[in-house]
């Protein structure tokens, strides 16, 4: 599905844009999760085959010719993993934000650049 593919890319770029321009740490993480969503959409779109059904071999699918009737299961499997990993990373990022906020009482990324050069 080309539209979903394009959608995925647009979300990816918007997410990156958000990460690059927003000073607020939480906004940056939101940007990251948008990037993630975009990536997932791209992956799923690549697995899509026109007019095929979900890769679940129930009564709607002819057992013998199953392989000709379903969409690609691999991207789905990958995205499952990717989503969970995305959650893990996001949660960890947010924990970092909590700690940072506790230490410095600020959510602006500009306040965290004492390490440089």
């Amino acid at each position, binding site marked *: 599905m080309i539209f979903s593919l394009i959608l995925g890319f647009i979300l990816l770029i918007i997410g990156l844009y958000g990460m690059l*321009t927003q000073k607020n740490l939480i906004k940056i993480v939101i940007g990251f999760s948008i990037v993630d969503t975009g990536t997932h959409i791209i992956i799923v779109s690549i697995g899509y*085959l026109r007019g095929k059904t979900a890769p679940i071999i129930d009564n709607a699918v002819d057992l013998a010719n199953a392989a000709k009737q*379903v969409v690609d299961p691999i991207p*789905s*499997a990958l995205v499952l993993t990717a989503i969970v990993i995305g959650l893990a990373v996001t*949660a960890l990022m*947010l924990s970092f934000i*909590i700690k940072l906020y506790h230490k410095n009482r600020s959510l602006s990324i500009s306040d965290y650049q004492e390490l440089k050069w």
Partner: protein
Amino acid sequence: MINRIFILLALLGLILMFLPFLKDFDFHDQLGDLSSQYVEGSINDLNSQNVVTSVVVTYRGLDTLGEVTVLFLATAGIGFLLRTKKRSKKSRKSSELLQTASQFLLVLIILTGIYIFLHGHLTPGGGFQGGVLIATAFLLLILADANVEFNHKVLHLVESFSGTFYVLIGFLGLLLLGMNSFLDPTIIPLGSFGKLLSAGAIPVIYSLVGLKVGSELTTILDKMGGE
């Protein structure tokens, strides 16, 4: 300002990089070799209706183990990051009604979750989705009572042992079927296609994954939602 220009340049550059890919993109008409093998293998070798589940649990079982590990790490990591000295116990009782309702819902949702991961090889969904549902149940508890004290011991036990058993099942394959059979589901008879008790160890694994994911996510929610 210069920064803005560079940001735009970077994004523009990325778009230009991706454009040829989008332009030349051409959907495949049919499954590739590997996917076809998976679909057929799922039916013939694994007796699993849900091909995605077969792929996730069996063919790419190592990925899934890794995925569980990632979640486990996130839990441990958040626990590590947000580690505190002993929590002060100040109980704020919320309304009786909300608690009763949520406890009722809790059971219901947990049951649904269990249903989902037990049927992972038959219907959409599986360990992860089921696990999330279970966690949602506990989320309700947290929402109902911000200071809810989970029985951490139980939570830890479930988390630890579900994970351990998951690995041990994989290990069993190694033990029974040889060095290339880590996470082989055929250590348990495959059963008949389309039935609950089919697809060998897949439902077992998915159940363990579900329990593990559920307990892990609960821990995360507890850590992040708690005071």
